[in-house]
C-alpha cells in the first residue's frame, strides 16, 4: 500500500507563525520604541485620572486615616470585637493582605526562576503588589493593636526590667517572618528597577531628571554592574520562593497552634500558602486587566496570551485550594470533637452561611466552570471579573477562619455572633482604597513595565525556521 505524504500548506505555517507573534517575546520592537511607549504610559494622564486619584485620596484620608484616629481616640470598644472574638476583621484583613502581598513577590520570583515566556511584562506589577500589599498588612496589624504607639514592644529588645520577648510564641515568630518579608520584598522591587530608573534619567527633563538621576544611583549598564545586579536578582528570586512559603506558614501557625475548633489543623500551613497564591494570582490578573484597559500602550505589553497563561495557573490553584479545603473540612467532620462539628454546622447554616457558599462558588465553582475555556481565558474583561470574584471569595475565607471560627469555643456561655462595626468596614475599605491609591500614584512615577526585561526576553526568543514552519526558540543571553 502506497502512502501519500501531504505537504504542509504554507498557509498553515504562516498561521502558526502569526499565533507565535501574539506572544510579546516574538513580536519585538526597537528598545527606543519600547522606552517611549513605557514613558508615554507614565506621562499621559487626563483629568479623569486625576479626578479618580483625588477621589480615592480623599476616601483614604477620611475612611482610613480619619477613622483610624477615631479608633485611637475611642479605643477598641468601637469595633465588633468582644469576648470570645478578640481577633476580628482587622486580623482577617491582615491574613488577606499578606496573601495578596506574598503572591506578588512569589509570582515574580517563580516566573523568573523557571523562565516562562510571559513573565517579562508582569513582574513589575507583581512586585508593586508585594510592597503595596504588605503596607496594608502592617496597617491592619496596627489597627488591631489598638494602642499602636506601643507597637515597638514587638521588636526584640529588652524592656526596663531586662525582660525579652518570648521566642517560644508563634506571634514572635510571626513578627520576625513579616518583618523579614516586608524588608526583602521592598529590596526585591528596587533591584530590577535600577536599570529602568537609569533609562528614565536618560529620557527625562526638569525635576523628573533630577529625581531619576538620584534614584538611578549612577547606573550605566557596564559589564560589572550587570554582573552584580543579575547575581543579586538570581539570589533574590530563588530565596523569595521559600520565604513566601515560610512566612505564610508562620502566619497560619498563629491559628493552628491554638487548640481551638476550626484552627487546630496540621494542614493549615499548605492551606494558607495555596490560599495566598489563589488570592494573589487572582488579584494580579485583575490588576493587569485594569492596567491594560486604562493605561496607554499597555495592550502591546499585556496581551491575551498573558491572561491565557495566568488563567491556566488560576485553574490549577483553584483545584489545589479546593483539595486542601476539603482536607481541612472532612477530618473534623468525620473525626472531630462535637465542637468541631458544631462549628462546621455553624458555617453552613449560621448567619455567615451566605459567605460560606459564596466563598465556595467564587473560589472553586466559577473558576472550574469558566477557566477551562481558552476564549474566556484570553478575554481581559472576563478575567478581571473572575479575578475580582476570587479575591472576594478569598476575603470571605479569611473572615470565616478568623472571627467566624472564634464564635464557637469550649465555653458555651461566651458564644456570640460577631457583628462587624462601621469602623471596621471603613478601615477595611480604606486599605483597599489605599492599595489602589499607591498604584495610581506609582503609575505616574515608576514604570509598570520593565523595558530592559522585555528587551532581554525579546533578544533571547526567536522564531527558528524548521522546514516550512517557524518554531519558537529560546536561549540565555545573560
Amino acid at each position, binding site marked *: 500500500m502506497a502512502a501519500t505524504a501531504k505537504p504542509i500548506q504554507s498557509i498553515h505555517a504562516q498561521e502558526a507563525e502569526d499565533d507565535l507573534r501574539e506572544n510579546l517575546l516574538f513580536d519585538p520592537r526597537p528598545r527606543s520604541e519600547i522606552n517611549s511607549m513605557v514613558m508615554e504610559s507614565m506621562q499621559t494622564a487626563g483629568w479623569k485620572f486625576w479626578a479618580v486619584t483625588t477621589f480615592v485620596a480623599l476616601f483614604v484620608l477620611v475612611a482610613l486615616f480619619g477613622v483610624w484616629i477615631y479608633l485611637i481616640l475611642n479605643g477598641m470598644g468601637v469595633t465588633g470585637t468582644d469576648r470570645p472574638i478578640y481577633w476580628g476583621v482587622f486580623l482577617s484583613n491582615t491574613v488577606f493582605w499578606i496573601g495578596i502581598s506574598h503572591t506578588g513577590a512569589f509570582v515574580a520570583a517563580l516566573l523568573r526562576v523557571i523562565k516562562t515566556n510571559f513573565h517579562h511584562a508582569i513582574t513589575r506589577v507583581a512586585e508593586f503588589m508585594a510592597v503595596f500589599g504588605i503596607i496594608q498588612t502592617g496597617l491592619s496589624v496596627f489597627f488591631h493593636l489598638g494602642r499602636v504607639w506601643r507597637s515597638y514592644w514587638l521588636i526584640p529588645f529588652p524592656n526596663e526590667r531586662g525582660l525579652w520577648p*518570648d521566642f517560644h510564641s508563634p506571634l*514572635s515568630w510571626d513578627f520576625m*517572618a513579616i518583618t*523579614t518579608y516586608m524588608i526583602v520584598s521592598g*529590596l526585591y522591587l528596587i533591584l530590577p528597577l535600577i536599570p529602568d530608573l537609569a533609562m528614565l534619567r536618560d529620557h527625562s527633563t526638569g525635576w523628573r531628571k533630577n529625581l531619576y538621576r538620584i534614584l538611578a544611583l*549612577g547606573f550605566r549598564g557596564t559589564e560589572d554592574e550587570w554582573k552584580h545586579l543579575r547575581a543579586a536578582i538570581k539570589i533574590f528570586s530563588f530565596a523569595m520562593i521559600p520565604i513566601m512559603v515560610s512566612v505564610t506558614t508562620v502566619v497560619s501557625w498563629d491559628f493552628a497552634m491554638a487548640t481551638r475548633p476550626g484552627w487546630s489543623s496540621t494542614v493549615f500551613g499548605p492551606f494558607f500558602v495555596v490560599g495566598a497564591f489563589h488570592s494573589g494570582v487572582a488579584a494580579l490578573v485583575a490588576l493587569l486587566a485594569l492596567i491594560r484597559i486604562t493605561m496607554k500602550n499597555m495592550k502591546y505589553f499585556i496581551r491575551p496570551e498573558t491572561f491565557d497563561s495566568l488563567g491556566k495557573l488560576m485553574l490549577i490553584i483553584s483545584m489545589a485550594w479546593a483539595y486542601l479545603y476539603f482536607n481541612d473540612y472532612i477530618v473534623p467532620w468525620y473525626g472531630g470533637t462535637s465542637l468541631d462539628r458544631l462549628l462546621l454546622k455553624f458555617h453552613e447554616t449560621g448567619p455567615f452561611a451566605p459567605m460560606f457558599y459564596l466563598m465556595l462558588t467564587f473560589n472553586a465553582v466559577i473558576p472550574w466552570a469558566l477557566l477551562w475555556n481558552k476564549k474566556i481565558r484570553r478575554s481581559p474583561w472576563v478575567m478581571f471579573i473572575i479575578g475580582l470574584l476570587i479575591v472576594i471569595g478569598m476575603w470571605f475565607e479569611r473572615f470565616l477562619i478568623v472571627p467566624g471560627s472564634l464564635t464557637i469555643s469550649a465555653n458555651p456561655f461566651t458564644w456570640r455572633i460577631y457583628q462587624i462595626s462601621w469602623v471596621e468596614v471603613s478601615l477595611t475599605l480604606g486599605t483597599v482604597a489605599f492599595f489602589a491609591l499607591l498604584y495610581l500614584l506609582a503609575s505616574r512615577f515608576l514604570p509598570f513595565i520593565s523595558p530592559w526585561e522585555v528587551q532581554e526576553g525579546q*533578544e533571547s526568543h526567536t522564531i527558528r525556521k524548521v522546514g516550512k514552519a517557524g518554531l519558537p526558540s529560546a536561549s540565555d543571553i545573560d
Partner: protein
Amino acid sequence: MSDDGMTLLALFQEVDPAAEAVEKLREMGVADERMNVVSGVPFKEEILGRPRVRTHVPMFALGGAIAGFALAVFLIWGVPFLYPLYVGGQPMFPVPPLLVVGFELIMLGMLTATFLGVFVDSRFPSYEPKFYVPEISDGEIAVFFDCPAGMQAKFEKAMQSLGAESVRTVEAQEL
C-alpha cells in the same frame, strides 16, 4: 580612562558586531582592561568575548546568612541566659523555634547583604562624571576603549568597517 590618549566610543545596534569589535580591538593592541562594554541589557561575557567578571555578591550573601543565623541563635538560645523565663513547660533552649526564627533571620541577613553587596561591588551610589551616552538605554551597545595618541583614524576606520553606527571621542560627563 586614558592616561596619554583619548577615550573613543563605538556604538553598535547589534551584539554580533560589538563582539567582533571587542575581538578586533584586542588584535589592535587594546588590553581588555582598557575597554568596557556598556549595554541596556545584560549579556554573558562569552557572548561579548570578554573576560569573566568576578562578583562578590554571593560572598556577601553567605556572610549575611551567617550573621542572620548568629542573631537567631542569640535570640532563641542566648536570651534565656539573660532572662530565664519558663513558659508552659517548654524547654529553655528549644530547637523548633530556632529553626523557624533561624530560617527567617538567615534569609533576612542573606538578602540584605546581597542588596548591599550590589552597592559595594558596583560602588553605588556614584554621581561623579562617567563615560556614558543615553543611546545605551535605547538598546545600543557601546564599546568604550582607550585609543593611543595619533591612532584615532585607524581605530575609527576599524570600528566603522565592523558596522559601528558611530565612532567618536567622549569625555566623562554627569549622568
